[in-house]
């Protein structure tokens, strides 16, 4: 056990920090083109696709180097790269499960943001029970015809391509009849409609597919392997971002403390109230625990171990933490915390606001409700932890051996 960073890691961190100081955009990025340009500069500096194979445009870097880049970007409040799902989910899926031809065709253009990606998994009636999805892929000889509806597709509006889960066999148990495909979003059979969320913004879309076309070479893995592929790739990159996530929460925390020194109750600054100090102390302790957890996950990744079901523990812990953090923020800030417009400047958040996110506590508070639902709700994570880590018996379920109609 040695929790010091190595001299190489420290030197690398310095170089990243220096690069960011020299290259960070001076003004907020407004348009998709500006964001793409920033994305390309990050890529050219070697900071994207760092762990992907070199022959397909990646950097072959260690997980620690990836974590350091993400962490320094959080520290500098740098805008995120623009092709988040391409980098986080689609690319790693193609790296692990794709053919050489698919790797050559798609990976580099994800890294350069020439092609933007979305993920087509959830359906209106297949949320937590994702494996019950009904979107069908019918073999038409030279291609597959796709019919069905997807929901919670982030970045759907700008995506050129989608990573799709569709049913290719209705006669086998539901988990075994699903196949993974790459589908062009730029075709007549694909209709993308924005979905307005409780935040008032529309990061997500609904996607309707009517006889949409998937070319035969765009099938990932074998027929019926889609569920297994989705399960191995859902947790990709989680570890690499976890340190950065803690760092951005730490910077919001310091802004919250500054606000607590200005706001008063009973004539006294909130920051001097023992009750408020208890709450500030508790949430900082929880934040530190998340940081230690991030270092544990990084250790595993550095050793080439996949966290597996352990990723469910990490996700459960930090997503529930994020809700508590934002609840405390709005408790301390009172009605100021609820403002979506007209808040004093010092009550703004230091976050990247260009993807529709508003730099307000109110937005962060609302958004924190999503984290315990997406990518497997807290309840699903607890099922996974119970069954796969603790080895508890599976529950009696009506659909265990069932066939999807």
């Amino acid at each position: 056990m040695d929790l010091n960073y190595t001299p190489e890691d420290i030197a690398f961190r310095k170089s990243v920090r220096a690069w960011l100081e020299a290259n960070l955009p001076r003004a907020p990025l407004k348009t998709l083109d500006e964001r793409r340009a920033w994305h390309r500069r990050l890529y050219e500096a070697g900071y994207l696709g760092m762990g992907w194979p070199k022959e397909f445009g990646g950097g072959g870097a260690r997980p620690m180097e990836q974590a350091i880049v993400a962490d320094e970007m959080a520290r500098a409040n740098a805008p995120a790269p623009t092709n988040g799902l391409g980098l986080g989910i689609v690319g790693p899926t193609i790296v692990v499960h794709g053919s050489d031809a698919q790797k050559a065709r798609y990976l580099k253009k994800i890294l350069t943001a020439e092609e933007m990606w979305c993920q087509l998994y959830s359906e209106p009636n297949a949320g937590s029970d994702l494996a019950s999805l009904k979107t069908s892929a019918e073999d038409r000889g030279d291609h597959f015809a796709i019919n069905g509806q997807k929901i919670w597709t982030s970045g759907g509006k700008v995506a050129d391509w989608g990573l799709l889960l569709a049913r290719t066999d209705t006669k086998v148990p539901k988990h075994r009849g699903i196949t993974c495909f790459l589908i062009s979003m730029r075709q007549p059979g694909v209709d993308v409609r924005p979905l307005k969320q409780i935040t008032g913004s529309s990061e997500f879309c609904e996607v309707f597919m009517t006889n949409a076309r998937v070319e035969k070479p765009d099938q990932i893995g074998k027929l019926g392997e889609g569920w297994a592929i989705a399960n191995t790739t859902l947790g990709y990159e989680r570890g690499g971002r976890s340190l950065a996530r803690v760092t951005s929460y730490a910077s919001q925390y310091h802004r919250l403390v500054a606000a607590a020194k200005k706001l008063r109750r009973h004539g006294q600054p909130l920051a001097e109230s023992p009750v408020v100090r208890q709450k500030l102390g508790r949430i900082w302790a929880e934040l530190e625990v998340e940081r230690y957890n991030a270092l544990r996950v990084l250790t595993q990744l550095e050793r080439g171990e996949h966290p597996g079901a352990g990723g469910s523990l990490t996700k459960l812990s930090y997503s529930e933490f994020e809700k508590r953090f934002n609840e405390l923020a709005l408790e301390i800030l009172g009605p100021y915390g609820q403002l979506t417009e007209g808040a004093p400047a010092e009550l703004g958040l230091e976050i990247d606001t260009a993807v529709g996110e508003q730099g307000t506590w109110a937005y962060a508070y609302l958004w924190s409700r999503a984290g315990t639902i997406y990518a497997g709700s807290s309840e699903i994570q607890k099922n996974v932890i119970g069954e796969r880590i603790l080895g508890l018996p599976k529950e009696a379920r009506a659909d265990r051996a069932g066939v999807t109609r």
Partner: protein
Amino acid sequence: MNFSFTEDQALLRSSVRSALDEQCKTDHVRAMMDDRLGYGEPLWSEMAKLGWLGLPFPEQYGGAGLGLVELAIVLEEMGRVAYPGPFFSTVVLGGLTLLLNGSDAQKERWLSAIASGRSRLTAALQEDSLDWDPASTTATAAKAGAGWTLSGTKRFVPWAHVADAVLVPARAPEGLSLFLVNPKAPGVTLTPTRGMDLTTRWFTLKLDGVSVGADALVGAAGGAGSLLESALRRAAVGASAEMLGAARRCLDMSVEYAKVREQFGQLIGSFQAIRHKCAEMLMEVENSHSAVYYAAWALEAGAEDAAMAASVAKSYVSESARRVCGESIQAHGGIGFTWEYDLHLYFKRAKSLEVMFGDAEYHRELIARLVAA
């Protein structure tokens, strides 16, 4: 960066576990609950032989020269079996404090004796007010020739009845100072208390004009404030390691029980009400593990955030361990509430340590001072 145990550390854990599984079974723990002294000499001698008693001391004092991470491993395993005895008071409260602040002669005298199993130590860190802030000490040390005369009352002194020396903070003319006191010296009265955790023994220690020599002073006269703060940090992390062990034991027992207990014709572990409870318990146990070992490493390495890490660990684990141990009783139902079933041993151990060396609230205030000053 490597947040995992070395092979040697893993080996240490498995050897400690197998020794305790062998020699500190529940039968032994329960026998010691009714024992006059409260601990077994044969196991103590065995711990000396295995090198646990001198684990964090340099080899020149007969120690193993290991660090706080290794000590935390041993303490976690002790929490796991609710080990009854003066290990914590001797090695953590007494030994580590002398190791950091004692004179060469004091280290020579006491650390070797601890490592060999000949001597037991403890520290008297609380008074009537229960404030853990060393500044609140009211016991006095009046100058008497080359030495001092100590007076005052100390509360909740662990294992004082078997200690050969007690570390006692008292106010000298120079300021807060720390002294080594022989609990059998004239003027010292020990009164036993009986707490709900019968595997731990607490005493009220009364000092009524107790004479100590010049060589009883630990560190500089008037310099005990920061010395005690660092001793308290080590104690807080050590207690957190024990609470972690107790919590993990309760979790393990709950999971095992949920795999065999049937109600409504099904194993109760198949019900989400129980499965989710166990998942939440595991999350808190793993978070506690992160907090304990990060803090142990930070203290050992003298990291910048060592004081923060110690308070994070104590505040987080104090509440998590209480919750996990409590939820294990809930998951078991009626059987978990019986004296015969072992859960209450760990539930009570966790509770008795929760309030020692600063409870969660105490440490949250320390955190607030560091980060929201």
